[in-house]
């Protein structure tokens, strides 16, 4: 993307006012999107994002600047903005960039850019048609195929020069089921760090059917009653509970400045002993996987919680300095115009000791949360929430009628202790996680779990 000589010159310029570390992140991202609604192709767009972010550190201070001007003068001007903002000082380092390749453990068979757009349209049509085929009460289907080819280059004053190419593919289907004066929705949106071979593994038909069936189920459901309940949360996107109740609060972004309820708790019990949780960016072809993070640190499998004991945080370079701890390969950014910070990759609760049927059978009067929507958390207070998009009443140990409109709220510290049964069908699901360094792909996951007591919002 950028010549080594120019990278070196820009790093020197960035450090010219006394920084002790400088980094250049260059990005070239092609995104293609095909969208259908009302059984017709409505949008075909492609965009090229291209730019550079330059960062310097001096102790715990950080200055960054970004530009889309990739000419020599544009890059040097950007580096100079960084140096000027840092203030007075002198450069005292020499920089020798050595190219290092970390290897790619995410093979891509059908690079989406090489496929005809008509092939992609046919895939979207298959999903849309399958959703409409679920019955007359399906009143609308919106289906989108998105593919992203994200090339990054990282060079820093420690001499690192490396790059990675991240190809991701995702299909999202939203179905609407209607009866007079009333709508309900269902959605399904699988994605992977792979090419169009994704749809050999997950046929588009199955994606459309799943979205439509959920909408139909919810159309016949009553509103969930509010109250404090025992809840069984299913695998896959159910893992959003850990992502919100704990994951964000283990990111150095909040831990380093003492704005997390889990700051200073390493080695202490913060969850029920049945809970072991992992952040693993090295799973081949998984949605949240990365070969290297956006600072060029190789990705890793980090055990966050082992049998309830807090083992590790997720740490980037800058917050690592504040904490006196090494980076864990979790520094991520949406793109060049966002400063990176510690983020999750693929984060999940491991399989536990309980049989799934025992978990359901143990609940006399509660909720079975089969499908979840997104959520959010305030790491400072630990207050978190997420939506149940497909829920069922559990009565006398049996899953009964569906209920709509439920949400779950609680406090991370309390709820982690309340995860008192952990099942054995670990599965992950895909999401886009939003935080200060932008929107990034992450996997959440877990087996079926039981939360002994949590506030269920409803009518």
């Amino acid at each position: 993307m950028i010549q080594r000589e120019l990278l070196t010159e820009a790093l020197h310029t960035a450090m010219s006012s006394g920084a002790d570390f400088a980094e250049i992140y260059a990005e070239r991202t092609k995104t293609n999107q095909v969208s259908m609604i009302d059984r017709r192709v409505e949008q075909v767009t492609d965009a090229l994002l291209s730019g550079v972010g330059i960062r310097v550190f001096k102790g715990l201070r950080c200055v960054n600047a970004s530009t889309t001007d990739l000419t020599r003068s544009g890059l040097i001007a950007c580096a100079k903005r960084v140096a000027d903002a840092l203030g007075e000082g002198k450069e005292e380092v020499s920089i020798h960039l050595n190219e290092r390749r970390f290897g790619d453990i995410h093979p891509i068979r059908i690079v989406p850019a090489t496929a005809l757009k008509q092939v992609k349209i046919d895939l979207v049509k298959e999903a849309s048609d399958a959703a409409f085929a679920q019955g007359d009460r399906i009143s609308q289907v919106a289906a989108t195929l998105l593919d992203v080819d994200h090339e990054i280059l990282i060079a820093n004053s420690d001499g690192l020069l490396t790059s990675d190419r991240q190809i991701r593919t995702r299909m999202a289907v939203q179905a609407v089921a209607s009866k007079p004066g009333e709508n309900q929705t269902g959605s399904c949106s699988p994605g992977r760090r792979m090419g169009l071979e994704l749809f050999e593994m997950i046929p588009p038909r199955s994606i459309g059917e799943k979205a439509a069936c959920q909408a139909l189920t919810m159309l016949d459901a009553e509103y969930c009653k509010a109250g404090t309940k025992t809840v069984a949360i299913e695998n896959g996107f159910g893992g959003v509970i850990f992502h919100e109740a704990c994951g964000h609060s283990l990111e150095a972004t909040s831990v380093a400045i003492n704005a997390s309820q889990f700051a200073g708790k390493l080695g202490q019990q913060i969850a029920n002993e049945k809970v072991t949780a992992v952040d693993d960016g090295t799973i081949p072809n998984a949605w949240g996987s990365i070969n290297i993070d956006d600072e060029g640190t190789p990705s890793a499998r980090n055990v966050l919680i082992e049998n309830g004991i807090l083992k590790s945080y997720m740490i980037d370079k800058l917050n690592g300095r504040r904490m006196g701890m090494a980076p864990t390969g979790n520094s991520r950014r949406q793109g060049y115009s966002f400063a990176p910070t510690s983020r999750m990759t693929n984060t999940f609760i491991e399989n536990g000791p309980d049989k799934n049927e025992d978990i359901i059978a143990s609940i006399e009067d509660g909720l079975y949360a089969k499908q979840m929507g997104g959520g959010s958390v305030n790491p400072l207070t630990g207050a978190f929430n997420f939506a149940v998009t497909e829920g069922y009443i559990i009565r006398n140990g049996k899953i009964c009628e569906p209920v709509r409109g439920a949400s779950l709220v609680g406090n991370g510290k309390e709820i982690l202790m309340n995860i008192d049964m952990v099942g054995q069908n670990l599965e992950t699901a895909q999401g886009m996680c939003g935080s200060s360094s932008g929107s990034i792909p992450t996997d959440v996951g877990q087996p079926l779990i039981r939360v002994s007591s949590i506030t269920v919002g409803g009518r």
Partner: protein
Amino acid sequence: MNQNEMKQIISDAAAKAGINEYELYFEEAQGTDVTIFEREVKEFSSEEVAGVCFRCLTGNNIGYASTELFTEDELAALPARALENAKLIESGDAQPFYKAGDTYRPVVLQSRSPLASSSDYIHTAMEAQEAAYAADDRITTGTETSCGGVRKKIWLFNSNGLDFSADYGYDVLVSGPVARDGEESTDGMTFAYGKLSELDAKNIAKTAVSRAVSKLHAKQQTSGQMPVVFSGEQMCTILSAFLSVFSADAAQKGLSLLSGKENETIASPCVTLIDDPFYKDSPVQMSFDAEGVATFTKPVIENGVLKTLLHNRKTAQKAGVASTANGAKHSYADAVSISPYCFYLQPGDASFDTLIDGIESGVYITALKGLHAGANAITGDFSIDSEGFTIENGKLGGAVRSFTVAGNFFDLLKNIRGFDNAFYLDYPSGVTVLGSADALVDGLTIAGK
């Protein structure tokens, strides 16, 4: 590369590709942001980015292609890329690009000056940070203040003769104090925007601190149906989650339950909702929309009656009406969609005390979280994580947390009993700035302990 060079390269390439009808939408953004932690600059960032989107018309289809790489090769490749995309569209309801010779009302903006110097932003942020620590002994580590500015320029050019630009910008100060008492921590994020020299750093910090401190020792809210007062800020949060129900595009696709409800009563008589591209206190004012149509002020709901949905040219043509000039691009690369400008619920005359006067037992909601998941614009349903204060015998009581408020947006519109006169204008999102005063609503369910 300047705009004329860029225009020339793309026009030549379009002619070569046999494209006669096209549009260029160029966006340039500059930003500065500084964050203070403890008593030092923790982070400073500066952004200078630009992108261009090319759209072309072939038959009844419009195709898009965009780039941020301003090399001759990339710019010259845009027309062919857009044409390929256009040929695959099946909805086939596009019209020629706009040229109607509208009269464009000029905007009067608060802050159009260039970005301030970094030391000025740092100075203001530092002043607020110091003021936050000075305001209360319980303010502690974790407290951050950020200050910065954005400047945006949009340029629209099409083959039908439209050629104009707009710019807007504002400075913003965000005070984020953390209050700690024993094991308990709370925060109190508060912002203000406008011209840097006019931002009252000390006052903003004081407000933020009193918010953080007032949330300490919150109790669990009890469950049940009760009157709810949403703060103006949270009425904006709710409005933002359900914004798409006012879009004619969503209505025409069966994704809004307001479809076909024009001139019907959809809200309580005290509800008037206005879309004003020129609202005096809004930091983002626009005299043309993303398709070049001249903007104007209109009521969307007037005394409870739905007067119009928001249209762009495509939805207007389909409905057989004129565009309401709400064609929008959230980012330059996006297809034209629909967004309001300053979109606000008209405030009432009463004070806050009068608004809550008759409430025996209720709740005043000052924070709502997770609406991207807990609120569904297609169904209208919501069940949302909340924080606030109790209302007892007509008076504000203690802080409460960890409860949900649930209902349906379309019922909520009908169950608004009144607004007070404390008008709040939210932070801009693209060209949209939402506004509302505190609102009293009946018929909602609270789930707590």
